[in-house]
C-alpha cells in the first residue's frame, strides 16, 4: 500500500468511527463531553484561520461567539425566526464586526494586537451587560436569555436527545477542517503565510497582506459565530459571562496554541488532549481540592510551551509519519526502504 492510500484509508476509517460513535456509545454523559470536545475543536480551528494562518494572536474571539448566540436567540425568541436563519445572520454580523476590528488592529505588532483584541472582547461584553433593551430588541443585560425547551424539531434547531446535536457539530467540524485545508492550499493561504513570516518581502512582491488578513478575519469570525448559535441551542441559556467571557477567549486560543497553530490538525489535537484534562481534573478533584484542575491545566500549559513550543502536533505528526513509513515501507519521498535482513 502506498502512503497516500494508507492516509486516505485512515481518514475514511476515522470518519466511520466518528459517525458511528453514537450508535455504539449510548451514555449521554459521554456524548455530552464529546459534543463539547467537537465544539472546542471547531472553535479552535476557526480561530486558527486568524491566529494560525495570519500569524497574529487574537484573544477576544468569544465576542463573536456571543454575537452569534445573541443574534439567533433574539431573532427566534422575539420574532420566531428559525435559529438556522438566525445563525447566518449572526455569522454575517460577526464577520462585519471582525472586519471593523481588524482594520485598525492588523497594523499593530504582536502584543499590542493581542491587547487590542482583549479590549474589544471585554468592551463588547461590558456593553452587552449594560444594555437591557436595544430599541425593540430585548437583550436583558447580565441576566441573559433563556430558551424554553419547547418546539422540538429540526426547523427550530431543538432536539430532545443528544444525537442530533452530535451530528450537527460533527458535520460543522468536518466542514471547517475541509475549509481550512482548501484555504491553506489556495492563493489566500500562501498570501497569509508569506504575510506572517516576512510581511515586507511579501508586500514588495505585490501581495496585499492587509487584505488577506482581513479576509481571514471575516471568515474566522463568521465561522465562530455559527458555533455561538450551536452553543445557545445546546445549553439553552446564554448570558454575557458565559458566551463572551475572557476565559472563553483565552481557552480557545491556548488550546489552539498548545495543539499547534498554523497547522490543520493542531487545534483539533489540542482540543482532544486538553479538554479531557480540564474536565477530568474537575470531575475527580473539583470537590476535594478546589481549583486543582486549574493548577493542572496551568502546569500542562507551561510544560508544553517549554518543551514543544510549536505545539504538540509537531511530535505527533512526526510519529504519524514514522508510522506511515513503517507500514507502507516507503519514506516521504516515495523511495522504498531497504528491508532488514
Amino acid at each position: 500500500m502506498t502512503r497516500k492510500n494508507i492516509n486516505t484509508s485512515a481518514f475514511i476509517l476515522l470518519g466511520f468511527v466518528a459517525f458511528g460513535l453514537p450508535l455504539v456509545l449510548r451514555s449521554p454523559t459521554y456524548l455530552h463531553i464529546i459534543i463539547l470536545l467537537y465544539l472546542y475543536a471547531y472553535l479552535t480551528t476557526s480561530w486558527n484561520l486568524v491566529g494560525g494562518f495570519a500569524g497574529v494572536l487574537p484573544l477576544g474571539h468569544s465576542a463573536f461567539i456571543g454575537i452569534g448566540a445573541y443574534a439567533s436567540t433574539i431573532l427566534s425568541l422575539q420574532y420566531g425566526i428559525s435559529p438556522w436563519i438566525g445563525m447566518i445572520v449572526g455569522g454575517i454580523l460577526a464577520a462585519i464586526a471582525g472586519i471593523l476590528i481588524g482594520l485598525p488592529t492588523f497594523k499593530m505588532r504582536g502584543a499590542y494586537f493581542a491587547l487590542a483584541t482583549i479590549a474589544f472582547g471585554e468592551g463588547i461584553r461590558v456593553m452587552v451587560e449594560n444594555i437591557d433593551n436595544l430599541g425593540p430588541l430585548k437583550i436583558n443585560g447580565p441576566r441573559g436569555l433563556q430558551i424554553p425547551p419547547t418546539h422540538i424539531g429540526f426547523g427550530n434547531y431543538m432536539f430532545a436527545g443528544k444525537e442530533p446535536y452530535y451530528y450537527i457539530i460533527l458535520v460543522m467540524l468536518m466542514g471547517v477542517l475541509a475549509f481550512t485545508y482548501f484555504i491553506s492550499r489556495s492563493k489566500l493561504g500562501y498570501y497569509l503565510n508569506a504575510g506572517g513570516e516576512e510581511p515586507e518581502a511579501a508586500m514588495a512582491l505585490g501581495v496585499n497582506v492587509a487584505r488577506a488578513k482581513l479576509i481571514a478575519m471575516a471568515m474566522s469570525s463568521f465561522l465562530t459565530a455559527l458555533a455561538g448559535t450551536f452553543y445557545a441551542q445546546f445549553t439553552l441559556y446564554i448570558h454575557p459571562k458565559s458566551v463572551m467571557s475572557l476565559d472563553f477567549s483565552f481557552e480557545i486560543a491556548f488550546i489552539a496554541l498548545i495543539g499547534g497553530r498554523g497547522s490543520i490538525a493542531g487545534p483539533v489535537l489540542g482540543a482532544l488532549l486538553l479538554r479531557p484534562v480540564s474536565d477530568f481534573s474537575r470531575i475527580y478533584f473539583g470537590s476535594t481540592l478546589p481549583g486543582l484542575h486549574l493548577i493542572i491545566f496551568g502546569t500542562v500549559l507551561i510544560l508544553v510551551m517549554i518543551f514543544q513550543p510549536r505545539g504538540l502536533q509537531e511530535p505527533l505528526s512526526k510519529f504519524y509519519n514514522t508510522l506511515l513509513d513503517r507500514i507502507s515501507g516507503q519514506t516521504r519521498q516515495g523511495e522504498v526502504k531497504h528491508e532488514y535482513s
Partner: protein
Amino acid sequence: MKIDIKFMGKLTVFFSILVLVAALPLIPASALAENVVKVGNIIPLSGPSASVGQQGKQAREMAVEEINAAGGIKSLGGAKLEMIYADSESKPEKGVAEAERLINTEKVNVLTGCWNSAVTYPTTAVAERYGIPFIVPVSVADKITEQGFKTVFRIAAKDSWWTRDQFAFLKDMEKEFKTSVKKLAFVYENGDWGKGFAEQWKALAKKGGYNVVLDEPYPSTSTDLSPVVQKIRRVKPDVLMLVSNAADAILLTNTLAEYKVKLKAIIASGGGHADPSFLKATGKNARYLFDIVEWETDVNKPGAKEANAKYKAKYGYNLAGEAVDAYLAMYVLKDALERAGSLDPAKIIKALAATNLTSGPGMIVGYDAVEFGKDGQNKHASLVMVQVNDLGKGLERITVWPKNARRSGYKPVFPMPNK
C-alpha cells in the same frame, strides 16, 4: 513489508493508553456501594463564589453525618446518604455538564444546587428532562420556580419575597420609631441578582410612595467604590438599600464609614453582607446595618443554638442563612425519602411535593413548616431582618423583625445615630 515487533509493541501500548483514557468518563468517580442514596450536589467550589460554595458543602456534610449516624433512611433499610460534590465554577455550562454526568454516569437519585441563579436555570432544566428531583436550597431568582418544572423544589424564599419583606420592614420601623422615610437610594451589584432586586425595589418604592433619589448599579469587581459613595453622599438619601457580593460589600461598608455618610438606615440583602468574612473585615463600620436573611444564629427555635455551636466548632465560623438552607435541604430530603420508601425518582418527587415538615433537627429556620406549592416553592419560607450591633460582647447579628422573632430585650436602633 517487514513488521518491527518492538515498534508494534510501542504502538499497542500507545493505543491502549488512549483507549483507557478515553474510557475514563464512563467510570463513576464514586465507589459502588450497596444500599445508599446518591445525592449529587452542584455548587461553586472554585471561582468568585468559592466562599459560599464551601459553606454550603460544609452545612450539607454536617447534616448528612447526623442523618447517617442516626440510622440513615429507615424505610430503605437504613440506607445512608452518599454525597457527591461537583464544582460548577459558577459557570452555567459547567453546571449543565456536571448535571449530565451526575445523572447518567454517577446515577444519582437526587440533585441539589447551584447557588448562582445563572447556573441553576439551565441545570434544573437538565434534571427536568431526565425526571430527577432537584432541591434548590438557596438560589432566589423568581424564575426558577416559574418555569413550570415538576421536579424542582426550592427551599429559600423567592427574591420577590425578599424585596417585599425589606419594604414591609421599613414601613414597620417608620411606624415603631415614628420616623418618616422619604428618600431611597438603590445601590446594587451589576449582575443577575442585583438587577432582579432593583427592578422590584423600584416597583415597591412607587407603591409605597417613596422618592428614589439614586439608582446605581456598579461592577461587582470594582477596585474603588469611592465614586459610588460620593454619589450617595450627594443625594442625601434617608435610607440606602444594597445588594452586594462579599468583596464589594466590605469595600462599600468601609468606604461609607470613611466618608462619614449620614443615613437613617442601611438595608442590605444578605449574600455578601451575610458572609462570615464581612464582619471581620468591616468591624465597627458595619454597626447598625440591617440585613435581610433566611436565618440568624439567635432565632428563637429549639436546636438552633446547638446546631450553630456545632458548626462553629467544626468550621470556625457561624452558620449563615444560606448554609442553613442547605442543612435543612438534607433533612427535607431525608423526610421525603422516608415517606417515599423507594429510590424511584417519580416516587421521590411525589413525596417531596407532599412535604409538610414541621419538626426535626432541620427545622431550625425561623418559620414553622416546609411545604411546597404546586410550583415547587416553599410556601412558608420567610425572612428575618437582623441588625448588626455590639452589645458588649463584640459585634453580632441580632434578629429584629418580624416583631415576634425579635431577640428578647433588644430594641433596634433606628434611625442610626450619626457617628
